[in-house]
């Protein structure tokens, strides 16, 4: 996955992500594609969660999955989740859960609860930072005013790092793939460098959802694992999800 939160020169925030999934889960030789990736695309939906006929939050989701990986609370905050691989992975959390140690939360359930119940960027950040998890993750959070954007790097039990935008001399955007931002990405899976190169060309003067879409659909940021691209503007209460493929020649990940 690749998630970006960026702030333009007026302080307006944009949030977008590529959802990549299906690595090593069946390769279709005939069509040169990942089987699960292709099967997730027709399951991708935009959801509008309502109570009393009023929108509580919106998300981009898979039919049949009740957790959240991308969503927005209109006018308040936006949230995406990127996968974080670790030896101390979710299988340990599941094992502990089965044995009765149930003080951690399932990743998708936490993001759903945050989107449903949190009332501010700070509240969402607090929940995503402090809640114990069953699996490690990256949470990418955006808000509705200047400086409200961050990447939260989570292990199962604690927060390893919070990387903020535009405060104390921080960058005008944060960009997360599937590696800790303070370390180099795996050399055979470096989507970060090309994505950053494209973002740096855009500058805060020209950043917008269409220009972020340009970044996310540039190969190898776009790759054979990409299921969809979601664009979010909290201020405009706007969330758009497009199903994407990567025609050959294209990186398998």
């Amino acid at each position: 996955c690749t998630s970006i939160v960026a702030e333009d020169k007026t302080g307006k925030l944009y949030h977008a992500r590529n959802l990549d999934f299906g690595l090593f889960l069946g390769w279709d030789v005939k069509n040169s594609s990942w089987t699960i990736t292709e099967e997730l695309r027709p399951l991708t939906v935009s959801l509008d969660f309502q109570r009393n006929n009023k929108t509580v939050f919106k998300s981009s989701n898979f039919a049949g999955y009740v957790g959240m990986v991308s969503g927005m609370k209109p006018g308040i905050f936006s949230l995406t989740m990127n996968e974080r691989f670790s030896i101390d992975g979710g299988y340990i959390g599941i094992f502990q859960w089965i044995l009765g140690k149930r003080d951690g939360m399932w990743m998708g359930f936490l993001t759903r609860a945050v989107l449903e119940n949190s009332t501010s960027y700070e509240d969402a950040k607090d929940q995503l930072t402090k809640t114990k998890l069953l699996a490690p993750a990256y949470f990418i959070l955006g808000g509705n005013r200047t400086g409200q954007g961050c990447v939260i790097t989570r292990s199962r039990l604690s927060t390893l790092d919070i990387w903020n935008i535009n405060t104390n001399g921080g960058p005008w955007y944060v960009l997360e793939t599937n590696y800790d931002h303070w370390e180099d990405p795996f050399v055979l899976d470096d989507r970060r460098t090309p994505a950053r190169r494209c973002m740096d060309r855009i500058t805060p003067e020209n950043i917008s959802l269409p220009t972020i879409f340009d970044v996310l659909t540039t190969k190898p940021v776009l790759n054979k694992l990409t299921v969809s691209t979601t664009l979010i503007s909290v201020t405009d209460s706007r969330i758009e999800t497009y199903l994407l493929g990567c025609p050959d020649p294209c990186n398998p990940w």
Partner: protein
Amino acid sequence: LAKDPYAEECRNESYPPSGPRFKGNAPVYIINLDLPPSKRWDQLINDKKVQLKTLTDTMRGIMTAFFPSGKVVHILEKELTLLSATLPYPFREEIEGIAKASGIPLGEIVMFNVFYEIFTV
């Protein structure tokens, strides 16, 4: 290391999406949180149950490829069915509702919903 052969120059003016990379818009559904959790997903699942069945069949097929006897898949599905009873409100009820609406075994729907935790090793 050689330069990435498939990398390209940064794209420009690709929005609104079109061309061979664009596979369509995600359809929009309303999820009514005023409904009982077991009923919230009925309309969506009714529309997508064929695609969901295709996916869960593929996941089962991949596991069977790793463990051809089928015993591991059987045990996993049985355990995941039991696991559903431990999931918190309203997720347990929603997952059970999805299994009922789709006609897909509960264990397979649970697996789809906890796949992230399984996959992060």
